[in-house]
């Protein structure tokens, strides 16, 4: 290597990037060339100086703080996974339960109409609550209320399963 090539290596390539072969070529050259050796020594002492600067240390409880946060994240993720599984199962059952609820309501309604307890007037939208209760037999009323509950729960039961954002 000529002086120019060696100087180019020293000036333009960081010492940390020199491979063992390049380094040994530089060292052989600088052993014989005083001008290049001065530059090389300067570079090495700069590197040494930078590497000798002490590290700034973290607080003693950094690791425990990080682990506490990481644990909270794991718990959050596990909770999210549980919610996702529950939402998945709701997604399967919801249409079925809603349909079943609607079917039972329809059947009870038809039963009332066919029994003639309500007559044509029942089809009118304005029916007093007491009057409505009077039209139902007890089993029919129970079936109606259960069906209504099933329908409402199946529609809104998963409202609390909204997912949030991590991080």
């Amino acid at each position, binding site marked *: 290597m000529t002086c120019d090539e060696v100087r180019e290596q020293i000036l333009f390539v960081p010492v940390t990037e020199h491979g063992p072969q390049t380094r040994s070529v530089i060292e052989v050259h600088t052993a014989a060339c005083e001008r290049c050796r001065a530059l090389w020594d300067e570079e090495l002492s700069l590197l040494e100086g930078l590497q000798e600067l002490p590290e700034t240390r973290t607080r003693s409880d950094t690791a425990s703080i990080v*682990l506490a946060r990481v644990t909270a994240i794991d718990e959050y993720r596990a909770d999210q996974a549980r919610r996702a599984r529950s939402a998945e199962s709701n997604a399967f059952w919801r249409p079925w339960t809603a349909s079943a609820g609607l079917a039972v309501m329809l059947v009870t309604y038809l039963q009332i109409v066919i029994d003639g307890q309500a007559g044509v007037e029942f089809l009118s939208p304005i029916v007093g609550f007491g009057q409505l209760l009077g039209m139902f037999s007890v089993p029919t009323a129970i079936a109606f209320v259960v069906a209504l509950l099933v329908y409402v729960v199946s529609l809104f039961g998963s409202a609390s399963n909204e997912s949030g954002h991590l991080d």
Partner: protein
Amino acid sequence: MKPNDADDLQSIVRRVRQGDRDAFGRIVACFENRLMSLATMIVRDPAAAEEIVQDTFVRAYVHFDRYDDQRALYPWLATIAVRLSQNWSVRKQRLRIDDNAEPERHAIGSNLEQELSLDQAKTRLWSAVEALPKGERLAVLLCYRQEMSVAEAARALDVTNGTVKTWLFRARRKLREELAHPEVSDLSQVEESI
């Protein structure tokens, strides 16, 4: 507590992937001070640097699936720390503009000298590094202090290898000049204090 070699680190990484939090604790113990030095030099605020280091580890844990096993772990962590530090600096800068306040200069330098009782030469070198423009300072830190390759530093800083080499070249020239002729800067400091 610290991983001894690359194989050890690889097995720790595997355990973290399997959900072993203690293994992640070993990674934290291994790299926290190195990351702290990096963040401190970028943001020049030890409290903020501490927070950044914690956030770096938490973010790394959350996105651990994005880490490529074929590459070294530290440069990946350093990349996250650099990004978080830069975001912090931008936010701080914005607040300063809003407040119309004077920028802080060399906030960490004097503290560090006191804490670590650096000798004169090291103090001068430290101050010279601190006085470098941001890109040059980061390149020096990552390549010389953090022993990352030019390619790894370029990835962390989101620039090309050529840019990192240019920054290093300029920084080394300035540092060499600074160390060879300290009187000039000392004089300017005296003038400043007057």
